[in-house]
């Protein structure tokens, strides 16, 4: 018997993602992005993203079906990100997914976006070890999750108390005159720089601080102050060193806390996910520290770390296999869906 074919929808931010997964096999991952339209605003504008999702929706479904070489009528279940994310953006994908499920007469699974970022790794590296630790870092999230059972039980250990890690990258990039989104240009510039050149602060790393929470707002401000002081003094700004030192501070805190969480909870598998997991220094430092601590590190390829529809289909596929009941017909979107709700 062939495993069920699951169609996944992701519209929580600026990417319209539609993916097809059978079992743990990735069949297609079609993506449309409105990133270029947000660039001049220096951040994602929710209404622009929502309009773009509506325009892109049906064509992106067609691409996903064509890439997978299947028909819509072959689909056995539909999965969709129900939150967390931007409400207006979420609602386009949610309404589309509900309509496809109704029209194809198949069950609908609303899923948690963060849990989907963990599930996507199963498409590349096989069944998830449970329990696992997961570190999810993107423009919208910075979360440390304990995952006893990804289909039913995910526990939030810590999260950012202010900016998401990706937001800090965007803001520092702006200070350094680099384009939005800030992750790729900072990563590139940092390769020519010295990560130990400037000792930027590591937020929430004091002995009395919450051990698994993050803070990147102070770091961002420290970088801006440092750069502005040079500019006021008429001195050149060593862009590569600033980028490398900032990136080092982010990667240091994220990996130190993730490894500590693994140790404290007796977990020896760590999954990295989210757009910031594409950062080369974060990946390298995570590998180094996990190896030293005897932790198996799993990181999906950069393409699957950022938002996409395949990750939603991957979690949907897992829920079907685990016998989890589908969502209720009046499923809605929840912009602040808590992580312990895997399937709203």
């Amino acid at each position, binding site marked *: 018997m062939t495993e069920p074919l699951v169609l996944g929808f992701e519209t929580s931010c600026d990417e319209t993602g539609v993916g097809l997964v059978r079992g743990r096999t990735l069949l297609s991952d079609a993506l449309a992005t409105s990133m270029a339209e947000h660039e*001049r*605003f*220096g951040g994602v*504008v929710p*209404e*622009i993203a*929502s*309009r773009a*999702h*509506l325009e892109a*929706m*049906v064509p992106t*479904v*067609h691409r996903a079906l064509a890439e997978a070489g299947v028909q*819509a009528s072959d689909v056995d279940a539909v999965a969709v990100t129900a939150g967390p994310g931007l*409400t*207006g953006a979420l*609602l*386009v994908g*949610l*309404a*589309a997914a*509900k*309509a*496809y*499920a*109704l*029209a*194809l*007469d198949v069950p609908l699974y609303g899923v948690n976006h963060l849990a989907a970022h963990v599930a996507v790794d199963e498409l590349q590296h096989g069944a998830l070890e449970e329990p696992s630790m997961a570190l999810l870092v993107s423009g919208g999230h910075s979360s440390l999750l304990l995952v006893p059972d990804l289909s039913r039980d995910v526990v939030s250990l810590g999260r950012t108390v202010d900016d998401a890690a990706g937001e800090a990258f965007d803001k520092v990039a*702006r*200070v350094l005159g680099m384009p939005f989104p800030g992750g790729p240009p900072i990563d590139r510039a940092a390769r020519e720089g010295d990560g130990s050149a400037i000792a930027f602060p590591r937020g929430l790393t004091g002995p009395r601080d919450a051990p698994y929470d993050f803070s990147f707002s102070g770091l961002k*401000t420290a970088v*801006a*102050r440092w750069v*502005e*002081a040079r500019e*006021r003094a008429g001195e050149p700004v060593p862009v590569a060193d600033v980028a490398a030192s900032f990136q080092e501070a982010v990667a240091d805190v994220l990996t130190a806390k993730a490894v500590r969480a693994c140790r404290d909870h007796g977990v020896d598998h760590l999954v990295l996910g989210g757009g910031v997991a594409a950062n080369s220094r974060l990946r390298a430092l995570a590998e180094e520290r996990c190896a030293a601590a005897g932790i198996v590190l799993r990181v999906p390829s950069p393409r699957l770390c950022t938002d996409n529809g395949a990750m939603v289909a991957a979690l949907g596929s897992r829920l079907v296999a685990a016998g989890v009941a589908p969502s209720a*017909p*009046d*499923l*809605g*979107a929840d912009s602040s869906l808590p992580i312990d709700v895997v399937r709203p």
Partner: protein
Amino acid sequence: MLVLALDTATPTLLAGVARRSADGAVEVLAERAVPSGTRHAELLTPAIRDVLAEAGATLGDIGAVVTGLGPGPFTGLRVGIVTAAAIADARGLPVVGVCSLDAVGDGARTVVTDARRKEVYWAAYDASGARVQGPDVVRPEGAELPGPFVGDPAFAARLGAPVEAAEVTTTGLLRAAAGQLDDPAAAAPLVPLYLRRPDATPPTSFKPVTTS
């Protein structure tokens, strides 16, 4: 032919199933007008199931989908449009979009609906029911819109004239879609009637963190 009609341009979501004869005559078999406020995404597909069941039909019996394209508050508006587009795509059906205001009331009238931000969406129609002005968005005070008004009665005081309560109906949607339903292959693509640009202005300069 059976037609599925949807609209989410106002706080009342509408789902209907109607039989449309070759001569254009319309018989509504089932209709739900749900005062769902901001819960269109939750309640639209359940309402579609309800009207299909009441009409004794399945989506396999439907020959075309009609949807209102607004104007209406953006977030809710998109729910109906993307639902219509997705159902039509999944079932290989033609989908037709119409101005939602065209589906409110009949005859000579000016339709007004809530555009939020103290404004109304409006359009004016002649005695034959043809739209002669609008759709547009305006502050009702001093706009000197022609009457008589139908639509959202909450705006009577600010228009200085009575507004006869009326909402989008299945009959109204099919009437507005008549031309396109006669030749669905030639139907225009679904383009929402936003009438306003996204609320965002590019920053001209970024303020420094430190002040000198």
